[in-house]
């Protein structure tokens, strides 16, 4: 049984007058199994971020349903809290809290949301930051770190909530090339350990190493799905071929 089930997801954006400016999701069906790593690829504006963001309700769908662990997500505050607590998110621009140290960034949500005891939270945060290689940066502020270090800290922040699902949106596209690897290694490690993940990324090496399935989206629709090697080496659809020839 799948952990995340998306059925008929539609989402359009409107301007202030109510005119539709973009159809971001145009009927998307997608399943992500427990422990599965699904990679989303597709041209800019194809709806990848919107799909990710609607899973934890940073965007509200116009229609369609999202089921997490057998329960349909609704507007109820309890549902919202559950999905936000259970799904971690990693953003393209890291979005670390700039007025807090790295350690406080990681401790904030477990303290405020899970109401865990301070000493326990702190100990666990220190362990997580050690795991992403930032033991010597605990008391630094985000602006004192390189992009790669900030992204690793952001991953530790998401993991501190012990999420069952990680939503990762272009984690390396704001990074200088020499920092891409250190971040992808962390994410690959998580994949190996069985974290359920929905990842937007165009890093082919990472895709082949970590993804169970690759989903190609275009214009708000899923065009083609396959194994990494299958989809990259022998795409069936013309649009997939065109896109892959573009990025490879």
């Amino acid at each position, binding site marked *: 049984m799948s952990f995340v089930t998306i059925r008929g997801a539609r989402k359009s954006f409107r301007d202030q007058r109510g005119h539709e400016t973009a159809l971001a999701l145009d009927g998307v069906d997608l399943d992500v199994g427990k422990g599965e790593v699904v990679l989303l690829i597709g041209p800019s504006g194809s709806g990848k971020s919107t799909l990710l963001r609607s899973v*934890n309700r*940073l965007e509200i769908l116009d229609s369609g349903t999202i089921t997490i662990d057998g329960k349909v997500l609704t507007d109820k505050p309890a549902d919202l*809290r559950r999905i*936000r*607590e259970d*799904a*971690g*998110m990693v*953003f393209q*621009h890291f*979005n*670390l*809290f*700039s*007025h807090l140290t790295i350690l406080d960034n990681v401790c*904030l*949500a477990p303290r*405020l*949301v899970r109401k865990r005891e301070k000493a326990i939270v702190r100990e666990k945060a220190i362990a997580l930051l050690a795991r992403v290689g930032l033991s010597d940066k605990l008391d630094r*502020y985000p*602006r*004192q770190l390189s992009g790669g270090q900030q992204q690793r800290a*952001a991953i530790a*922040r*998401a993991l501190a*909530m012990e999420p069952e699902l990680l939503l990762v949106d272009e984690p390396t596209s704001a990074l200088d090339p020499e920092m891409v690897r250190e971040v992808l290694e962390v994410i690959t490690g998580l994949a190996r350990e069985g974290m359920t993940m929905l990842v937007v990324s165009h890093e082919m090496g990472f895709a082949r190493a970590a993804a169970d399935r690759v989903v190609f989206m275009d214009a708000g629709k899923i065009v083609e799905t396959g194994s990494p090697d299958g989809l990259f080496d022998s795409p069936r659809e013309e649009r997939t071929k065109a896109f892959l020839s573009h990025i490879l």
Partner: protein
Amino acid sequence: MPLFKSLGTRLGMTPWWLVAILALGVVGLVAAATNGDYSVIFGAIASGIPVTLGVAMVAFVAAIVLGLVLGLLKSSQVRIARELATFYIELVRGLPMLVVLYYIAFVGAPALAGVLNWLLSPLIALHWMEPLLARDFDFATRAILALTLGYAAFIAEIFRAGIESVDKGQIEAALALGLSRGQVTRRIVLPQAIRNVLPALGNEFVAVIKDSSLVSALGVQDITQLGKVYSASTFRFFETYNVVAFFYLCLTVSLSMLVRRLERRLKEGQSR
């Protein structure tokens, strides 16, 4: 040649306006100490300094509290809250401060007495207390109330800008971690917004000090009022207003310099 150049850059970097103001200050102090007339005037007006500072400080602190509430309402997701805050801010900012002052003093205070009497009417009916009269609010209180209500509108706009300057990505990240809207405001938005607006608030305090001279229109014994009374009775307008200006400049220029320093410190903190 290098000597010449370094002298040139040093002269170029000197804030000459500040040197000139400091020179004026020294002239003022020397005059106060050596010239009998000036020392009498200094003595007559100096008791207005604590009044000016007191009015300005109380009004400023109260205006920050009210301004923060209005700023939060104005940047709220709730439409009616935004509309109410905007209504208040635009109304008050559209009036000259002197008119706000007169309005609160002569319309607002009696109205406030009426409202309080209505709220407390059970107690009054039991003869536990006398009905309040407008004159139970002295003019200093009314002046402080007016400055508070007036400046809250300006400070609200400062807070709103500070709140809106906070990175939206950080707000999303906090929501994605499961923080409630209120937690996001208290733990993410406000700490950053307040830090961003500290210099602007400092400048606003300087403005409140200057505008506190308006309370002289209600007869409150601040620097301006004492100067007005003294000069009118002695016809020493020139000397008196020199002293009045001297006192205000001592307060405002030193505060402005503190604000600049704070601003520099915060900037350095950002790029650290």
